[in-house]
């Protein structure tokens, strides 16, 4: 089959600058939307399931609190009992990887005069938390000391609190529980929920929240022990009213909890993209309808219908591909890594290879779907009628 040269399709693009502009704008917009929605969902998903430690860690929570650690309350003695009772937990230099923690959503203020409550997730921890959560890396300063009103902030904490990065530099203070707390450390835990948290010495948070005798959870890291060992321990200590859940399973349930929000975002983006496709189809119908005579001439010159459809599709897909690349470049430059505050945390919009591929394919699809039906339609006329068409 004799094909029309690619240059023919390419040159045709310049025939109407307005139409070319509309095609570029349409596919750029669709790609940006797909990247924004995909990056949002991907960022949220990665935050909830890509922690290095997830697969080795088990959370010991209060019975009935498996859906949300914030409402869990277990006896403060559980940490010691678990470390002593469960054989095969990871150890280093005699320190058992068992981190007693309190997770609480609490309002912070910048200073005593700040009228705005800024909700933040605070995690009361001991230094052993750094062993149990190896994703956490202290980038500046140090771990806060108990009893000295010190805190350490994750790298997305400014987004979570809605304040500029400079306001949360080392040495600055935040107000909570009628006291100023000094920022002595900044840490990063990329793609984890911890990245948006504020870490505070466990005893300080226990005192501040009036729960000296309880914890939210004890996170243990498995070595030779298996999940069943921890589960058996939880089930055998009925007096402690505790349950064991893999950290990965816990965050998977949180991810499932956000499912409706993700569906809503994806459906919205898909609907907008569909609107873009329909607009593109309309324009292409008009554009190709005006070229019926030209198509008739090409057929008279011996080009097959398939070759003409291929050329018209090439034209549309090429314009869409340029728009898709433009959209991908804008998305990578401005959307990737964008910090988003959402529901007790924050995460970064993540445009990685799969999301990028999805976006670019979406853009190409606009060109393809927008071209084929109008191209087939303008080939319906017999050659003689097409040549007579105005």
């Amino acid at each position, binding site marked *: 089959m004799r094909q029309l040269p690619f240059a023919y399709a390419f040159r045709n693009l310049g025939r109407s600058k307005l139409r070319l502009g509309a095609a570029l704008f349409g596919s750029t917009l669709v790609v940006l939307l797909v990247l924004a929605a995909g990056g949002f969902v991907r960022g949220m998903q990665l935050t909830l399931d890509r922690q290095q430690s997830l697969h080795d860690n088990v959370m010991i929570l*209060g*019975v*009935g*609190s*498996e*859906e*949300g650690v*914030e*409402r869990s*309350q*277990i006896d403060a003695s559980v940490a010691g009992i678990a470390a002593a009772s469960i054989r095969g937990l990871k150890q280093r230099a005699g320190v058992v990887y068992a981190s007693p923690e309190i997770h*609480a*959503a*609490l*309002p912070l203020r910048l200073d005593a005069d700040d009228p705005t*409550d800024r*909700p933040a997730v605070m995690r009361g921890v001991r230094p052993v938390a750094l062993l149990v959560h190896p994703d956490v890396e202290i980038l500046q300063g140090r771990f806060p000391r108990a009893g000295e009103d010190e805190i350490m902030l994750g790298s997305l904490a400014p987004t979570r609190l809605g304040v500029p990065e400079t306001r949360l530099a080392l040495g600055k203070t935040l107000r*909570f*529980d*009628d006291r100023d707390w000094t920022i002595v450390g900044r840490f990063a835990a990329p793609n984890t929920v911890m990245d948006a948290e504020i870490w505070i010495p466990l005893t300080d948070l226990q005192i501040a*929240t*009036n729960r000296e005798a*309880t914890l939210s959870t004890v996170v243990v890291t498995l070595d030779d022990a298996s999940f069943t060992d921890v589960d058996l321990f939880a089930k055998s200590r009925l007096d402690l*009213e505790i349950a064991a859940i893999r950290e990965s399973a816990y965050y998977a349930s*949180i991810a499932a*909890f*956000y499912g*409706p*929000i993700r569906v*809503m975002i994806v459906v*919205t983006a898909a*609907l*907008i993209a*569909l*609107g873009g496709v*329909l*607009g593109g*189809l*309309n*324009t292409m*119908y*008009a554009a190709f*309808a005006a070229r019926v005579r030209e198509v008739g001439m090409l057929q008279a010159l011996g080009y097959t219908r398939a070759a003409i459809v291929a050329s018209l599709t090439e034209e549309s897909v090429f314009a869409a591909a340029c728009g898709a690349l433009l959209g991908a470049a804008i998305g990578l430059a401005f959307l990737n890594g964008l910090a988003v*505050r*959402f*529901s*007790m945390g924050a995460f970064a919009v993540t445009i990685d290879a799969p999301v990028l591929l999805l976006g670019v394919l979406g853009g190409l699809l606009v060109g393809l779907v927008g071209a084929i039906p109008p191209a087939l*339609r303008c080939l319906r006329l017999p050659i003689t009628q097409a040549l007579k068409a*105005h």
Partner: protein
Amino acid sequence: MKLLRCFPYVSKQVVRHRVRSLLTVVGIAIAMFLFTAVQAMNRGVTEATSAKANDTTLVVYRADRYCPATSRLPQDYQSRIERVEGVTAAIPIKVVVSNCRASLDVVTFRGVPKDDFIDERRGELDVVAGSLDDWKRRTDAALVGETLANRRGLKPGQSFTAAGITAYVAAVLRSDDAQDQNVAYTSLEFVQLAGRDDLGVVTQFNVKVADAALLEPVAKQIDAIFDAAQEPTATFTEQAFIGRVADDIVELVGFARWLGLGCLAAVLALVANSIVLGVQSRVSEHAVLQTLGYPGPLIAALIVAEGVALALTGGLLGAAAAIAVGRYGSFAFSVEGTSIPIVADPALLLTGLLVCGVIGVLAGLVPALQASRREIAECFRAA
């Protein structure tokens, strides 16, 4: 009058280009579906967070706390609150949520003293299924809000488990208050016993005052009483309380408003695109109309009417679909025990049609004016 007589001509123009009209109408319907959905969310936020003149409810919460799990007030604060001048009732409430985070399918239990609750809310609650007596009699009984019941498919006589609590559905209630529609009311002790050592501990007190003017002074007085207590309080009007905890949702809906404006721009672009294409392909037809004596303004009006017809058809389909999904889906945002409903009011249909009508006129205006000002001879030559 002349324009009305030309209605068949306008409708024929729309039907004549079936594919173009269909694509335009479907595109508009999609954009209006999203616009109406955003409007429904917006209405929910406004309804839940705007103060009304006859509001007389205060929420007493633990100071410096957000999540219901961290607001732990002694139940015996009740009698001290009730002694404050201007307070007519104080209902202790223990709130348990399946998750403190914001999403669309959160189950919220509110433990309340049953008799006080019924006395206080008499006339406001409409039991649509099941029996209130059954709710009063059974310890584990839940009075489930209609939105929650529809969403989870709960019917009287069933049991359900959420947030570590297994409850029996005794009745389904309907209420004008969005907070009632999306919760399960149970007995206070039942929810307290479901938690660890929570007997005598409540999350909040809902306080009724005698007059709306007393809200602020009473709130200040209550907070002053417990200022030095181990569990100090922070008292808000109900709407201010919701606005405070639902900050993230308010922000999300604020962002969605931009999406709504984007949808309107899309409708404008789709209608304008269709009208421009139509006008371009009918240059000679307009010349014939002018030759037959149709004045320029009438031709312009016919073109605008075509845009309005497309916009209204798409708008009607999209807005109606959004309202149907909103109403039958029983969606509500929930965060930290409070609900922001998605108010898919039929009035939104009217708003959607009005907006579409205006956009239809705007989109058709420029091509219509251009077409009406063309010289007849020029039109025939161009064709």
